[in-house]
């Protein structure tokens, strides 16, 4: 435990931009953890879903963009359906992805996918994947 929480980031984090992209108010979240409890992919994530919101509430966007969590999320919207505050976490995850992608950092590369697999996969898998992980 060496990383102290520095709250200077709260000022640096462009909350307006974030809310513009996501359309969500991250401060509605009261950290009940229901999103994490119900997340089917939580085992694969380095940050639990509720932690993503918590870090954003505290302006720690730098830490959030480094996690794999937002890339593991498949927008199944289970969290949204059960969220007691009606926060759409899938939109928050998307907004973080967009912040990364809009800096021209694609997360997947079509050319690196084996052509054999590419032929087998249903189109919706490929289109969906590129929609989420490339600009």
């Amino acid at each position, binding site marked *: 435990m060496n990383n102290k929480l520095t709250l200077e980031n709260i000022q640096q984090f462009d909350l307006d931009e974030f809310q*513009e*992209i*996501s*359309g969500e108010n991250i401060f509605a979240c009261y950290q009940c953890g229901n999103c994490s409890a119900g997340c*089917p*992919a939580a*085992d*694969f994530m380095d940050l639990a879903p509720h932690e993503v919101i918590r870090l954003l509430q505290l302006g720690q966007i730098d830490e959030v963009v480094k996690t794999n969590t937002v890339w*593991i999320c*498949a*927008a*199944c*919207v*289970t969290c*949204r*359906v059960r969220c007691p505050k009606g926060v*759409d976490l*899938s*939109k928050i*995850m*998307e*907004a973080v992805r*967009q912040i990364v992608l809009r800096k021209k950092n694609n997360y*997947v590369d079509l050319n690196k*996918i084996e052509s054999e*697999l590419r032929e*087998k*996969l*249903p*189109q*919706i*898998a*490929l*289109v*969906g*994947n590129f*929609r*989420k*992980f490339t600009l």
Partner: protein
Amino acid sequence: MEISYYPGCTLKTSAKNYEKTGLALLPIFDISPVEIKDWVCCGATYSLTSDNLMYQLAPIRTLIRAKESGNPRLLTLCDMCYNTLKRAALFIENDEEKREKIKNFMDEEETDYRGDEVEVVHLLTLLNEIGSQKISEKLVKSPLDLKIATYYGCMLLRPKEIQADSAENPQLMENIFQGMGVEVVEYPFRTECCGSYQIVNRREIILDRTKKIISSAVKNNADLMVLSCPLCDYNLEATQKELIEQDSNFKPLPVLYFSQLLALILGIDPEINDWSLHNIDPTPVLKRKGLL
């Protein structure tokens, strides 16, 4: 009665069995699907950003085509198309500013679209409107002693604004099959995500999901699984082979589109199915149950 029909990309390729059997069901109930003209890909996943309207253009174009067709209802079979089209319509329905912006991207001849003129309806909803009683009246083969697991996944049920049925306890498939005497087994993962498009680059997630979902259905004595989404079908069906290789204790389960099973029960020629598209061959169990 005619209904506009939007197939989407996957139904024309890897999910041919779904389209063929799904559409074959409709004439039984005097419904003729009319494929809309010049449809484009819906985008597969609904864009979750509020500031980028570009991703909404494709589904809205499709909705405009549907509006032009003059039929107020647009039928989809694919859950992902259903979700994307329905959410796109909702996205602009109550937002004049967004509508105006989107209009700027449209070709001039394209009609003004408000978001509420076309009702996107999934095949399962349509069949539920017909009602299990009417469907059962058309029953040709009595599927005795058949136990199925239904799988809904995400796109048909979430978010609530567009859900075709209860997000926690959907009954769309139960209504249809229980009505004709098929036993639907209870297992806890009917609505849990299959991993979706992560299949492209995070295959391990899908394997984990498939193992959990299929094993639970098998444990609860399902003979086969039925579902309605081509991506769920791929994820839950095609990856079972790998799971068998990884784990000798893994018991596979045949996976079908619900329409394939329904078509067999209603006496539609089984030959319209291309069984070679299945990785886990469902024909032995179907034969055993007298459906083939």
